[in-house]
């Protein structure tokens, strides 16, 4: 390791979130708090049927209601205004609806109550069509079509790869296991519900306040929306208020944003649309459900020979990023453990269910559930201890995987050892108690999905030693503000509270591809570090003239600029800034930096080093299974991660705890119950999010591998916490009572049914 944590002043310190007091005291301004003069309230009417033709819409009564300013239907939406990366989704549908969350009309009124009343006055005549709700059935020849004109329910996506020779490897394998695993809908459950406020100025430029994780890409989407509305060459300003949680849910632009824009334009007034909790459950996107067929083999020494996986993803009625999650699933499939021969085929299938989106882990949890469950099955079949089996196949620094991922730093083995040590995998458990382990790989150094994976930062120093940094990166509660501040403070010899982080206003901040793929610490962190380095150099050059020593001898620490060992040559940084500024020909110290990691787009072959570095981890669980009820109690949980370097261990632990709790919900309790396309549990009573009382004590050992490309050695850790949780639990249940549950969530019902099956 190049530098020890004790050599840092600010990096590696447990500094509480800089906005903690603001949030705790109710001062943080969320979208709910945005109020503009003359603002109207928008509401959306959703389809009554999962699949139907719209025969007639009568909005006359709604329009006549006092206080209503505008009523829109699909007819009012410009033809080219569409959402999603394949643009198959207009913000209000016309002619045909293919899910219950399809927007069919929208209203703007002087109060939310009147807007709601107006919705009730809209009369729509539907002609119901047969729906299809099972993706595997939707693939059958005679299945009803979700989109008639496409002639098939299967999306045209490129998810079909073959590295090496799987058939040959299978023949040569000593042991092979094969099975089917399924995962279901779960949803982000952000504490802050979705919403947007749109307004136009007199020159028809748009400002939109919106909960988004992608200010720059949203900016582009909204420019396109304006263009579709006939507003060419206009400006768009995206302002992100404080976000109450993202978890991937805000990685696309949505109907409510586009509808707010349309209504604001029509009414010439600001229009606000904010979801209530039921709407949040019903009209935002879920994690995509999967059906996975997996076959894996190993030789007689336990070395993995091949992995063959086939998946069917329920795409829902429209397409958002959910359909691209196979690109990330490919990463664990091809590269979690060393395996040379890999086949993967994924089909995204239209159904009349809700459409899915990005959610923390972006497909990785679904894939890892199948892979790591299957790893245990294969180890058992080969007669090899499951920890040993994983170690035989572990990834190592310097590896290049079949997909072309270049593993620069890898602490997987250390993570596995940490779990083993904490949980004592000695097989000597009481009846009904068992342990389980599962590992993970995830992108930890950006992820090149678009042409650019970059982030910009602009840094300016005032006259007193304080910094404003304008970053493209987005803080949505995860703590990027802290990370940015700590990185800049470390580099400039300041304290974290000297750094003011300004983010998420596209008029002010540079471009960034978005807060996704666990990339912000790495990419936005490197952008901030680059800008800080440039300013530091300017300070050193200026001080070298003052102190008359070479620039490289000058250090910055504890708010001082000084020459080590020479007490005369020391000055408060603030004073130096004033000396630089207030003189003839003076200057302010500022810098900008755009950091774009040296990672690769996956080409047609679906090969390439998509991230600069990869994060690794191993999770271990000790569970107790009540064999009479099927109820699973998590007794202990260990989540060890190779994070490169913990810039802020407090926040890091927070990310891991939160991830694990989300993962435990995924494993055991959470499920959006869907019946014929209808969400049956759109509330927190029936959607079983873990409560504080359910929370499990989690140990989170941190392995620091000091990545050569990370800012101060750090890699991304935003998503990994929820990636291998479900298989760790499933494996522990198997260890405890000998039943393998292959369908999430692992409810008492499923466990008990399996036990009854096993015991006859």
């Amino acid at each position, binding site marked *: 390791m190049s530098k020890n944590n004790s050599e840092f002043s600010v990096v590696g310190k447990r500094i509480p979130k800089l906005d903690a007091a603001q949030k705790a005291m109710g001062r943080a301004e969320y979208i709910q708090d945005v109020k503009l003069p003359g603002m109207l309230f928008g509401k959306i009417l959703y389809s009554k049927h999962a699949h139907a033709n719209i025969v007639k819409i009568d909005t006359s009564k709604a329009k006549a209601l006092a206080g209503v300013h505008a009523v829109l239907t699909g007819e009012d939406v410009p033809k080219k205004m569409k959402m999603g990366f394949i643009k198959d989704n207009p913000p209000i549908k016309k002619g045909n609806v293919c899910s219950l969350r399809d927007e069919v009309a929208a209203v703007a009124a002087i109060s939310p109550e009147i807007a709601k009343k107006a919705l009730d006055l809209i009369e729509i005549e539907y002609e119901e069509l047969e729906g299809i709700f099972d993706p595997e059935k939707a693939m059958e020849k005679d299945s009803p079509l979700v989109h008639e004109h496409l002639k098939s329910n299967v999306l045209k996506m490129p998810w079909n790869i073959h590295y090496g020779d799987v058939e040959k490897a299978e023949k040569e394998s000593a042991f092979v296991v094969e099975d089917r695993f399924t995962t279901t809908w779960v949803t982000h459950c952000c504490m802050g519900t979705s919403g947007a406020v749109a307004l136009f100025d007199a020159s028809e430029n748009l400002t939109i306040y919106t909960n988004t994780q992608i200010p720059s890409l949203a900016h582009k989407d909204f420019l396109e929306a304006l263009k579709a509305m006939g507003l060419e060459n206009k400006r768009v300003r995206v302002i992100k208020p404080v976000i109450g949680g993202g978890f991937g849910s805000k990685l696309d632009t949505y109907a409510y944003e586009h509808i707010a824009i349309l209504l604001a334009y029509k009414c010439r007034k600001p229009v606000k649309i904010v979801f209530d909790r039921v709407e949040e459950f019903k009209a935002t996107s879920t994690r995509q459900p999967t059906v996975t067929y997996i076959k894996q083999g190993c030789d007689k020494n336990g070395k993995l020979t091949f992995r063959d996986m086939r998946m069917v993803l329920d795409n829902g009625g429209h397409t958002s990023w959910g359909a691209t999650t196979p690109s990330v699933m490919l990463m664990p499939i091809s590269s979690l453990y060393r395996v040379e021969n890999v086949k993967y085929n994924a089909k995204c299938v239209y159904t009349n269910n809700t459409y899915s989106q990005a959610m923390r882990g972006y497909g990785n949890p679904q894939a890892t559930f199948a892979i790591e469950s299957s790893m245990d099955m294969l180890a058992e079949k080969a007669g090899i201890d499951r920890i040993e089996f994983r170690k035989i196949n572990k990834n190592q620094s310097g590896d290049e995987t079949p997909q072309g991922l270049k593993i620069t730093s890898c602490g997987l083995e250390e993570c596995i050892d940490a779990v083993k040590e904490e949980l004592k995998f000695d097989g000597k458990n009481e009846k009904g108690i068992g342990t389980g382990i599962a590992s993970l790989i995830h992108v930890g150094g950006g992820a090149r999905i678009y042409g650019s994976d970059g982030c910009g930062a602009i840094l300016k120093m005032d006259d007193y030693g304080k910094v404003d940094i304008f970053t493209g990166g987005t803080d949505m509660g995860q703590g990027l503000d802290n990370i940015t501040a700590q990185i800049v403070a470390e580099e400039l010899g300041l304290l974290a509270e000297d750094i003011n982080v300004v983010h998420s206003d596209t008029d002010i901040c540079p471009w960034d591809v978005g807060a996704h793929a666990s990339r912000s610490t790495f990419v936005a962190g490197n952008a901030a570090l680059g800008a800080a380095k440039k300013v530091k150099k300017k300070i050193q050059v200026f001080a070298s003239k003052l102190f008359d020593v070479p620039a490289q001898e000058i250090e910055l620490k504890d708010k001082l600029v000084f020459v080590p060992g020479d007490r005369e040559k020391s000055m408060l940084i603030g004073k130096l800034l004033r000396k630089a500024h207030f003189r003839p020909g003076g200057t302010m110290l500022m810098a900008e930096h755009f950091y774009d990691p040296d990672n690769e787009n996956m080409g047609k072959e679906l090969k390439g080093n998509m991230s600069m570095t990869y994060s690794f981890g191993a999770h271990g669980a000790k569970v107790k299974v009540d064999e*009479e*009820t*099927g109820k699973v109690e998590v007794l202990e949980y260990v989540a060890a991660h190779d994070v490169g370097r913990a810039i802020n261990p407090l926040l890091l632990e927070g990310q891991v705890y939160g991830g694990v709790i989300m993962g435990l919900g995924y494993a*055991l*309790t959470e499920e959006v*119950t869907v*019946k014929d396309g209808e969400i*049956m*549990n759109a509330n*927190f*009573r*029936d959607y*079983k999010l*873990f*409560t*504080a*009382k*359910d929370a499990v004590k989690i140990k989170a050992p941190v392995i620091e591998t000091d990545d050569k490309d990370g800012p101060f050695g750090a890699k991304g850790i935003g998503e990994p916490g929820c990636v291998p949780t479900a298989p760790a639990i499933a494996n522990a249940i198997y260890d405890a009572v000998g039943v393998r549950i292959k369908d999430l969530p692992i*409810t*008492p*019902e499923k466990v*008990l*049914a399996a036990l009854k099956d096993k015991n006859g």
Partner: protein
Amino acid sequence: MKAFKYLSPTTVEEAIAFHSRHSETAKYIGGGTDVIVKVKEGWMEPDYLISLKKIGDMSELHKNDATGELSIGAMVTHATLEKSLMIRNEYPIIHDAVSNIGSLQVRNVGTIGGNLINAVPSADGAIPLIALDGMALLHGPDGERSVEVKDLFIAPYKTILKPREILKKITIPPQAPHTGSAYIKFGRRAAMELPLIGIGVLLTLDDDLQTCPRARICLGVAAPTPMRAFDAENFLVGKKIDENILIEAGKIAADESKVRDSVRGKAWHRKEMILVHVRRMGLKCLNMIKDNN
């Protein structure tokens, strides 16, 4: 949410008078944890909410040492019951039930009376009161009447209460010696959970500490209203209770339950949980009786 006026009478008579004046558009409110949810959702649109909070004696929890009778005012909160040592020691089944209702916040304001009158099949508070042979004292425009708690319920959200009638208190007759009682709410989460099924068992033993003269097996979410498993109870009466007998009783209770498949859980699993927990709660009762002897 529709606006309403909030009235705070200080006597039962005044409350009834308020209600009479505003008839259809008025609604009593205890802690409001059910009422306010319904008003907010628009399922209920009262013009007046008549709070029973200021009616002094309705919040009293009192055991008459002379008669052994327990009296629980309808406005006693779950938290008050949960924290009472007397309840914990002498009526463990009540403690079991109320201490797992909702969350701390809900228990701090939610009342036992509201829990009964809201009349959902999953009402945690109803099961122990039925098992303890509780009597409900009702007060209406025509005066007072007393009914068994088990007979309060007609259907989900429907009780036998007449218009404007108020539940004043619940009384529990003195408990026989050698009595044990226990309740479990079986669900998927540790808090904020509707039971998938609720199982309450009360057993009294003779001086031989074996023969059972009186048994109560009460079930929540097993029928449209909280129910007693009479067949299972009758099966136990007169028998010397051991684990095998309790297993049998569990089977009978599961059979006579009217559990259904729902989005929350499958009928077969609910039955299975009745079977398992009648035994477990029964054993808990036996241990309690032994420990107290």
